[in-house]
């Protein structure tokens, strides 16, 4: 009969009624697929940034270069039989993007010309330069009769294996690149989860308010219990989903590991490495191989999700109580949603430079810290002091959120009619 029972009743009602819905089932199944698809698109876009969608006609006066060039990048180059004048005219009429003239004496002088309608980007020039340089280099070697085995040796590229020295002085393989991408993925997941579950809370509060259910609830329990019961119940739904995903991910990783991750190249690399090391899960920095996802990262994610969710959801509950519909809620939520939107926007920079001052500051400031810190934990070795500072700040801010929201909720929940302004909310917060 006590207070404890009532909040428990509310928590379990929120939890069960959410988990029972079809939406939850669909979200649980499709969520990871959606995230993987989204990340795939982002990675694809960021990787193909250096490439160009332009096409260059190749006029090869030397005669043997163009086949090699087209072999290097058939999307960029194509052979043209037209005269230079005709190409010039087509370029003027913007029918083609540009053309490359390879002179007869390219092997001697090492010079070629490209004509475009202006610009074309640095990426275009540098890939043309790289491509021609390597072709000409091989041709020159062939011309002086170099053995093909020597040419193969020269062709081979150097790959960089990144290592890090741990605190205990051991050298470990550093999965910087893969971990950075993983951090990005986790950051995105954090962003979506906090937002989705936060908006479940505000939607639920608005439903209870606009359907006048709140009057019955308020005659049975304290506003604080009703508010926190909802926040906790929905939070547990989120945790259930995440833990399910983690277990699913772990199961898939164990069973199908190499097949799901990355491209054929990394699978090959891993297979080779596995053979060389006599089996076991090998991680290597080339490409996007499977990083050794450690427990710290998983626990960190769960921990920051809980803190981040509770802070945002509590604010959302307060704001939801102040308004009658979701549009008005979105407006009043802006001051608290802006920081996390900012955080997701600068995540690529954090990923590239996880130890910058910006990264450190944003991983300590509450509201941005859940997202930025998880990116940093994945991408770099975050000093304990920074983690402690960020947790202390976030926990403190959470209590502030509870305090503010409880006051707004208590008054707002039974207010109908005109939409309150920020000044009204401040008045409610100040009232005893």
């Amino acid at each position: 009969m006590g207070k404890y029972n009532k909040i428990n009743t509310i928590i379990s009602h929120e939890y069960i009624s959410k988990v029972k819905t079809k939406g939850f089932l669909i979200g649980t199944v499709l969520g990871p697929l959606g995230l993987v698809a989204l990340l795939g698109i982002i990675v694809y876009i960021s990787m193909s940034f250096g490439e160009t969608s332009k096409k260059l006609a190749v006029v090869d006066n030397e005669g043997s270069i163009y086949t090699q060039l087209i072999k290097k990048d058939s999307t960029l180059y194509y052979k043209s039989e037209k005269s230079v004048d005709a190409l010039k005219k087509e370029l003027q009429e913007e029918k083609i993007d540009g053309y490359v003239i390879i002179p007869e004496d390219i092997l001697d002088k090492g010079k070629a010309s490209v004509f475009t309608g202006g610009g074309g980007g640095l990426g275009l020039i540098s890939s043309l330069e790289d491509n021609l340089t390597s072709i000409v280099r091989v041709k020159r070697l062939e011309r002086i009769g170099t053995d093909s085995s020597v040419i193969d040796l020269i062709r081979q590229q150097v790959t960089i294996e990144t290592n890090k020295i741990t605190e205990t002085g051991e050298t470990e393989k550093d999965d910087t690149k893969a971990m950075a991408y993983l951090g990005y993925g986790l950051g995105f997941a954090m962003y979506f989860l906090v937002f989705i579950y936060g908006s479940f809370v505000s939607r639920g509060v608005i439903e209870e308010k606009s359907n006048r259910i709140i009057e019955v609830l308020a005659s049975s329990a304290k506003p604080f219990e009703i508010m926190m019961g909802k926040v906790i119940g929905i939070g547990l739904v989120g945790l259930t989903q995440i833990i399910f995903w983690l277990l699913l991910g772990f199961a898939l990783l164990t069973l199908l590991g190499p097949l799901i991750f990355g491209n054929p190249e990394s699978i090959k690399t891993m297979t080779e490495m596995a053979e060389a090391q006599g089996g076991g899960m090998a991680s290597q920095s080339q490409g996007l191989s499977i990083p050794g996802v450690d427990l710290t990262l998983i626990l960190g994610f769960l921990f920051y999700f809980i803190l981040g969710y509770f802070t945002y959801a509590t604010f959302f509950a307060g704001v939801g109580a102040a308004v009658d519909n979701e549009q008005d809620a979105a407006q009043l939520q802006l001051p608290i949603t802006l920081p996390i939107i900012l955080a997701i926007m600068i995540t690529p920079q954090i990923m590239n430079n996880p130890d910058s001052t910006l990264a450190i500051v944003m991983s300590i400031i509450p509201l941005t810290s859940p997202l930025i810190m998880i990116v940093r934990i994945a991408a770099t070795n975050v000093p304990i002091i920074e983690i402690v500072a960020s947790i202390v700040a976030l926990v403190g801010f959470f209590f502030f959120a509870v305090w503010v929201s409880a006051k707004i909720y208590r008054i707002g929940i039974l207010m109908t009619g005109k939409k309150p302004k920020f000044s009204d909310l401040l008045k409610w917060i100040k009232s005893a």
Partner: protein
Amino acid sequence: MQNQSNVPVIVVENVKKQFGDYLANNDISLKVNSGTIFGLLGPNGAGKTTLIRMINNIYIPDGGTITIFGKPVSDDTQNQVAYLPEERGLYKKQKVLDQLIYFAQLKGVEKSVAKKRAEQWLIRFDAASWAGKKIQDLSKGMAQKVQFISTLLHDPKLLILDEPFSGFDPINAELLKEVILELKSQGKTIILSTHVMHQVEQMCDDMCLINKGKAILQGNVREIKKSFGRNTILLEFEGDASFIVDNQQFKIVNQTAHRLELKIIDSNFDSKLFLNELNQKLTVFKFELVEPSFHEIFIQSVKGNEVEVG
């Protein structure tokens, strides 16, 4: 029933509640006796809902005290009170039985007990087949029944019903009335807030009329009617009515060949006995005891109060 009436279930003393500059309740005092139906009346915006919310511990009074069963209003008294708000609210996407159980649990009832009671009441309201349906699939009247049932499952000693009949067709309204009277006969106390005055006359024992945050008229419903001093009999008949003359019980105020208007002076006047006498001597077409209707009492009191205040 009457012998319980002197035990107050609710005592409201000098209660004040202010929202910003708006004084919703200004020094209200009233008593609700055990086992009675108490009419809480007043024009829109008079402060009824504010008072009801304070009794339900939703609002806390700025001044004065409210006690329920002798204890100050608190989280503990909430479990003994049932509240049917004027604006009904149920979760549209949840099933009837699930919601009923939830609301009962919030009032401290065990889940299994709540389920059993909910099923019984659904049968009583001829609604057992809806148990697994969602509220959004029910008609308004059906949802109203569900909402009413939700107030009963914790077996409350005190029920506060705000416009309980709105949204019901005459047949279901009759069923609801029957249930309310049944609850009363079980010794429950009921506060009925309504704008439908004939319900007050039919159902309520006591009443309180609130206007502009103040109680302007309260007491026993019968006595209030009598206090308005318009107790009159309208009589239409065939035959010789010369035996009817002024006496200690009534006076003839108007007389034609087949029509008489009598004003009752004696409060112990037995109209049944009088009608029996009339029936023996005359052919009575119409015998009507005209008291001021509550409709009139309501309007007169509120207008009179307005004049006083204004």
